[in-house]
């Protein structure tokens, strides 16, 4: 890097950071549009950039529909702009704006798209990610039917196209799909698994649901988890639970070492 003075003593951390930044620029992933940085997930999670990179595709495997949709909604809400919710297939489950608004996703920012056929859904997602005016888009695979079919169609080629589109447009791309035991590899930058955790007491789960988050894959980082997190809707915050902090910190040290 030209900004790093060549005669200064070699600072390993600084050199590494500079190289990483250069790699990211070359790959195009995480290219910030304007001053918008990565989308924060949770303060103490050991992510390479401290959050989810924009201009990239991320994959969310959900063991239950509700928690997956809520997680995607709160990530989209944190992109701070117009987002598209693309539902593929003839799904019985509809994204419901009153509940999404509770996750911070205001109706004014939300555009719902319904694509009956899979190629249309992929095309819509690609167009949305390529558009500079869109800050985030989620492609929600049908939950009830054709779980296996959706899986096989979401292959490396399709996700690579989506990843390239996200790099061109700068939007945060999310793939929300039902959890499977051994998902096929995709070109997504990160892969998460989310599932519900039982709440401590009756009623506490209404506004503060507990989830189990797992980072299965991350490009340029170390997978981690599972972590138990609590979504505090009133404050709009995702909290890592107390007992998990130590292990997360350990994982974070391991990642940086």
């Amino acid at each position, binding site marked *: 890097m030209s900004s790093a003075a060549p005669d200064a003593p070699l600072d390993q951390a600084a050199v590494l950071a500079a190289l990483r930044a250069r790699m990211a620029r070359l790959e195009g992933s995480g290219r910030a549009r304007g001053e918008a940085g990565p989308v924060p997930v949770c303060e103490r999670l050991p992510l390479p950039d401290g959050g989810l990179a924009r201009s990239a595709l991320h994959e969310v495997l959900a063991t239950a529909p509700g928690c997956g949709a809520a997680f995607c909604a709160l990530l989209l809400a944190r992109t701070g702009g117009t987002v598209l919710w693309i539902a593929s297939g003839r799904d019985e489950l509809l994204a419901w704006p009153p509940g999404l608004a509770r996750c911070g996703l205001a109706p004014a920012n939300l555009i719902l798209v319904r694509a009956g056929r899979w190629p249309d859904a992929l095309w819509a997602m690609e*167009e949305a990610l390529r558009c500079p005016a869109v800050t985030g888009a989620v492609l929600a695979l049908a939950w009830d039917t054709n779980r296996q079919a959706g899986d096989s169609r979401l292959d490396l080629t399709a996700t690579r196209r989506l990843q390239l589109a996200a790099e061109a447009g700068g939007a945060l791309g999310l793939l929300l799909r039902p959890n499977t035991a051994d998902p096929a590899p995709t070109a997504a930058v990160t892969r998460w698994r989310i599932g519900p955790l039982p709440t401590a007491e009756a009623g506490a789960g209404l506004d503060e649901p507990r989830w189990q988050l797992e980072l299965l894959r991350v490009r340029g980082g170390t997978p981690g988890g599972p972590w138990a997190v609590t979504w505090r809707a009133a404050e709009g915050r995702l909290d890592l639970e107390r007992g998990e902090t130590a292990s997360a910190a350990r994982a974070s040290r391991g990642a940086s070492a």
Partner: protein
Amino acid sequence: MTGQPCLLPADGLGSRRFLALHLPCLATDRIRRAEPDLPTDQPLATWAASGSRRVLVAVDQAAATIGLRPGQALADAQAIAPGLLLRPADPDGDAQALQTLALWARRYTPLAATDPPDGLLLDITGCAHLLGGEQALLRDALTRLRRAGIAARGAVAGAAATSAALARARLDNPVVVSGIEAAVAAPLPLGPALRLSPAMLADLARLGLRRVRDLLDQPRAPLARRFGQELLDRLDAVTGQRRTAIRPVTEPPDLSVAQDLLEPIITRAGIDAVLDRLLATLCARLRAAGLGARRIALLAWRVDGVVQEVAIGTGQPTREPTHLRRLFAERLERLEPGLGFERMTLEARATEPMAAGTQAGLGIGGRSDTAAMAEALAQLLDRLAQRLRVHRVAPVASHWPERMVAALDPHAAVPAMPAGWAAPGLPVLLRRRPEPLKATALLPDDPPSLLHWRGVAHRLRWAEGPLRLEPEWWRAHPDLQRRDYYRVELASGVRLWVCRTGPPEAARWLLHGHLP
């Protein structure tokens, strides 16, 4: 078409020019076009039942020359011409074919109208010079119709009814100057010129009135008393004394550009190239006029006289060729070139004023101001809406779950959220149709303790509720019943939104939503 405004010539009668086309054998020509294997040397006719008789309705040229005529009994006709080909008459199909031909005739003028049952009327004022004069335009139209297998005669005159009468009554396809309508109409026979009913024609013939001239010589008042005002109206129309309006098949577009092709094009690449050129011209014209298009149609004239149309709509007025190009790209596959397109037209059907400043080329990565972003978003929504259901949601102040959101146009502004709309504890996903469940509760009004969902029994860790919702009696259907909603957590941690509905003795449980 009905429902559209009549277009009266705005200025004097003398300044307008009308081309009338008469298609004497439309019904049979249409059948031959649809069934190309029919032997061309045998006469063809259509028939229909008239009471208990079966009579000929339309005959082609060959049948007419051997003495067959419409109205003849079918048995007689078959005795005269044993090889006669027969098809049942289809008046609706004929009307449809005439409509299609009127659309085709829009290649000459935007003001093309049908003249049922077997004619077309074109207002060619100011259009003739494009093809080298009225004579050349008439010849071009007749040639193209003949090539498409449709016999036609035509005439050009200064009044619509006069040209129609000339086309029907004379065989030489005349072009007459304006102002002498009465003189050219005078020698025409009454039947084809005024299109009177056979009964009235017979009555007139009994009085020795056979030509237009004979009627003109008569005093008008007795004629009106004897035959009604309609006869005089038709007479005045044919002699150019009374203006008649034509009713174009489609409203004339705000702007249109056309491209004639020397060689018919078949390939997608060719169509794309022509479209590009047309779009560039149209957008330049829109810019010059300070307009943006909301609806644009591409019309393609096929060699065999079929017109195909592909239309797009945009949410915001636009005149950006690349954007329109992409919208068309989704639709062009619907065109069926067949033997090729010989002419393509791009019409801006609906336009809106558009300030020069709001036109922004979608600079990739260049401009980042809000106007450019809004335009990029509008263009994205246009593209998506060509294929898919795209909508925004309007929050509705209601407590009934199905009524809390309303679909909005994607370009519309979203109203503010009403108070209490995004209440805590609402599901993020709602089932399109609530799914029936079985639940076990200790007492009928108690929260459930066990749920049977898809054949699996789930023990509940807790259930919270009920949240009792009454239907909106001021608008709801009478069969809606009150619902008691519970938020439940299964032993696995999955949180669901279930409700109990129906009377207490026959309560049903439904799974309606998924909580975070």
